[in-house]
């Protein structure tokens, strides 16, 4: 009964991601949307943790940006899609950035690769000097 695989957005909200307080706000907002979309506790936790990782990257490396949280539908399945965008310096070596343990800031280097593992869908676009956009989604099965 899929509608040809097209994505329908049921609800969306945008929040600023500029300070470490915003990272906490991001977690709360994503948690609320995940609950709304009917996620169980484990799926909620995975999504919020992934969001926390990317939000922190946006604040620490991206110079601050925005997060668009959307509850989406594709056919009969429902999910939450997160789009983080910043106009920061961008990532020069995307491939390296996506490997475990790679970090330019003394972190654990798990941010991007970890978030990808916690998501059902993950994509990243980055132009050095222009900015970075990370889109990830998790579906309720």
């Amino acid at each position: 009964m899929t509608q040809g695989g097209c994505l329908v957005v049921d609800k969306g909200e945008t929040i600023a991601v500029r300070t470490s307080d915003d990272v906490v706000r991001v977690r709360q907002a994503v948690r609320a949307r995940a609950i709304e979309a009917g996620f169980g506790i484990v799926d909620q936790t995975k999504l919020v943790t992934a969001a926390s990782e990317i939000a922190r990257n946006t604040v620490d490396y991206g110079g601050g940006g925005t997060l668009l949280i959307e509850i989406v539908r594709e056919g009969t399945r429902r999910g939450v899609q997160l789009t983080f965008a910043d106009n920061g310096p961008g990532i020069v070596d995307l491939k390296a950035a996506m490997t475990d343990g790679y970090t330019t800031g003394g972190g654990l280097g798990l941010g991007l690769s970890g978030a990808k593992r916690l998501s059902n869908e993950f994509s990243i676009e980055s132009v050095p000097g222009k900015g970075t956009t990370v889109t990830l989604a998790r579906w309720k099965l």
Partner: protein
Amino acid sequence: MAEIPVLKIGDCLLVSIQVDMHDRLAMELQDDLTNRIVSERARGVMIDISALEIVDSFIGRMLNNIAAMSRVLDAVTVVVGMRPAVAITLVELGLSLTGVRTALNVDKGLALIRKAIDDPGGVLGRR
């Protein structure tokens, strides 16, 4: 002074993290604990995370740092009360807590610390 209270039970320090911490608070806790281990001559540090709904790589790094620093000061670190959903997520995330012992709750955590302090496998033994 950190907003997260640190209690002293015998020669152990007990921290119960109740709030969703922002990064600055986490760093303050890390500093505060390290100072207190020295000032109180603590042999054990117990971190109760039963109220934490999320442990991301930043918090993970904080826990690892605390464990590393306390080890240098000859104290044992035990993390207690991790929620199932958090544990499952951490495994998926690929985060390992190195040098951190874990226990199900505060009671077992204290017992674990006791055992580690009283029976470390020789005076200069490896843990």
